[in-house]
């Protein structure tokens, strides 16, 4: 037998046994899930830049009018066709100046003010349409995943909507419903409701499918059985136990939805079926400038870059969120 200190009593032996289980390091405070998510998210450089840029552009269009209080619709025919300020670098004769940093258009309206006003509309359409699509998509996904009776019909309906030709139908709906809505809510309000409604109603399908898939898997887990066995009602199970667990796929599809909504709105404005002509949005500014892009290429570039950078940052944000919210990838 080897030399071993024989414990004097059984209680002491037990204490020693537990002593081996105690960690050598000092205990860390418990960490919440969202701190983990944030730390994983911070590792994705593109996502951090994307999120930062999205925040910047949102703040810029919200608070821009207070800093740059030029009326985007004010005509100033004497000062028309100013070039942007950087034009002075190559051409000191150019009509440009700090009064209009981005220049003015063919009617003398300040392009910087128009970009801010256009950004407000584009972002508002994007956020609202995305919100609408999320609400519809999550509702249909949860209902169809949770209630087996509804599943077949709701999913057939989703498949049907998925096989509708979206862009032609959107064009169709915008041209058809423009007049009645304009009569009721005014040309700008009517168009806003119409575009948000159409984009929201035609882009919820992917969210619904993803949410349904996740709910179907979660429904069979023990914690749902436990909740049901203590008599929790279906509505409460959905709100307390299911929705918090599907929040991550919903957030990822939200970012994708925001990107598509901004692009669709701009595409509609570009094709000439969007907002009325004196109402600036990024797509509208771009399409108005296309006919004169030989002389004034910056008027195409500025809104185009604004749309592309916003969509790019949203896509990167979505990419980072997907990695951060996936517990299998987290901590690697």
């Amino acid at each position, binding site marked *: 037998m080897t030399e071993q200190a024989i414990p004097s009593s059984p209680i002491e032996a037990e204490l020693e046994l537990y002593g081996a289980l105690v960690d050598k390091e000092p205990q860390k405070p418990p960490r919440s899930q969202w701190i983990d998510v944030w730390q994983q998210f911070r590792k994705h450089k*593109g996502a951090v830049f994307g999120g930062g840029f999205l925040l910047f552009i949102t703040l810029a269009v919200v608070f821009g009018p207070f800093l740059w209080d030029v009326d985007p619709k004010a005509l100033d025919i004497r000062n028309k066709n100013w070039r942007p300020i950087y034009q002075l670098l190559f051409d000191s004769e150019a009509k440009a100046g700090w009064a209009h940093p981005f220049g003015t258009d063919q009617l003398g309206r300040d392009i910087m003010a128009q970009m801010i006003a256009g950004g407000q509309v584009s972002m508002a359409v994007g956020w609202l349409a995305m919100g609408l699509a999320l609400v519809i998509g999550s509702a249909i996904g949860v209902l169809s995943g949770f209630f087996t009776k509804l599943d077949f019909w709701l999913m057939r309906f989703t*498949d*049907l909507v998925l*096989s*509708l*030709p*979206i*862009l*032609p*139908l959107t*064009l*169709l*709906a915008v*041209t*058809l*419903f423009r*007049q*009645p809505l304009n009569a009721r809510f005014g040309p700008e309000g009517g168009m806003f409701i119409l575009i948000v409604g159409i984009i929201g109603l035609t882009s919820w399908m992917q969210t619904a499918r993803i949410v349904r898939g996740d709910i179907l898997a979660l429904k069979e887990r023990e914690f749902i059985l436990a909740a049901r066995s203590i008599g929790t009602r279906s509505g409460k199970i959905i709100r307390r136990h299911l929705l918090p667990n599907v929040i991550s796929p919903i957030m990822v599809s939200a970012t994708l939805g925001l*990107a598509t909504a901004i*692009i669709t709105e*701009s*595409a509609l404005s*570009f*094709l*000439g*079926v969007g907002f009325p002509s004196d109402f600036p949005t990024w*797509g509208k500014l*771009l*399409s108005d400038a*296309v006919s004169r*892009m*030989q002389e004034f*290429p910056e008027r*195409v*570039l500025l809104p*185009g870059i604004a*749309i*592309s950078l916003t*969509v*790019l940052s949203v*896509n*990167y944000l979505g*990419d980072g969120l997907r990695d951060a919210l996936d517990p299998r990838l987290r901590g690697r």
Partner: protein
Amino acid sequence: MLTFTIRRLLLSIPTLLFISLVIFLLLQLAPGDPMAQVPLTVPPEVKQKMREALGLGQPIYVQYYKWLIQFFWVEPQVFIDWATRDTLLLGWLPDTHLSTFVDPDTGAVRPVQRAISWQTRSPIMDIVIQRMPQTLWVVGLSYIVGILIAIPIGIYSAYRHYSLFDQAGTFVTMVGFSIPPFFTGPLLIVIFSVSLGWLPSIYDTTHVVTDWASFKVQFMQMIMPVMVLALQTTAQISRYMRGAMLDNLNQDYVRTARAKGLKETTVVLVHVLRNSMIPVVTVIALGMPAIFGGAIITENVFKVNGIGQLLLTALFANDLPMVMTLTFIFAILIVLFNLIADVLYGLLDPRIRYD
């Protein structure tokens, strides 16, 4: 597999009927009046008669039924007549006369009434068939170019995961994904037509290729529209390709293949590639209709007179029969390619059995 295909084909009939009903009902709500262009000097009762001659006085279900008959019964008859009369492939068959009938009053042979466009008063399908080749050329070619660029990029960036090439490739595809075609189109025009003057900014569809010089002109004018559409395709497909390759590269069978001494090219390009192509092929099939949708914008930018441009002009001119037919053709394309994607998935992957 065959039963699955047949079942899916049968299921797509109610889907298409539902879609056509949705489009039809949407158009019923249209505020436009086809008589809006008729001069004001025409008295209202004559206008009313003209409306009835267009079939507008009928109840909605009669109008819908007649549209269905036109699209699914009359037009195929006209097409078969044309095929047996004028085409090389079927011209040797005896000429059919499905689309003509003998007038009971006069005894003369008359063609059946086809669905006509309110803009041009000519049969819709004739115009669609005139416009189709331009769209197919631009869209089809751009899709092929996009796939040919995307697949090597996807393979290489998965093989050299997290390398500089992979990072750059991911960034480029992300950018291609994010820049909308209505910005890339004008941007390319500004660079290559306005500043450099290399390429024409407008696609001339009347151009006929007869010799090498005219082929070169055709080639030059196709570059920009094709590349704009191809950028979107490339961005999407190379991401899928990379993902699918990454999933497969760590599988056990790859280690086995390497362990038994196969060359690296064989392992990657035969074993891994073939397995990774299964989801990518279905994505390619599913993306086809979306490309037709995107072509609406590209055709508008480069002034290609394809079906997308036809749809836009018909919408603005309130030409409802034309809009209805074109939207429905887009719907048929979507349903058809969804079906193809499902069947291909089952055919390529023996692990998947639907029945």
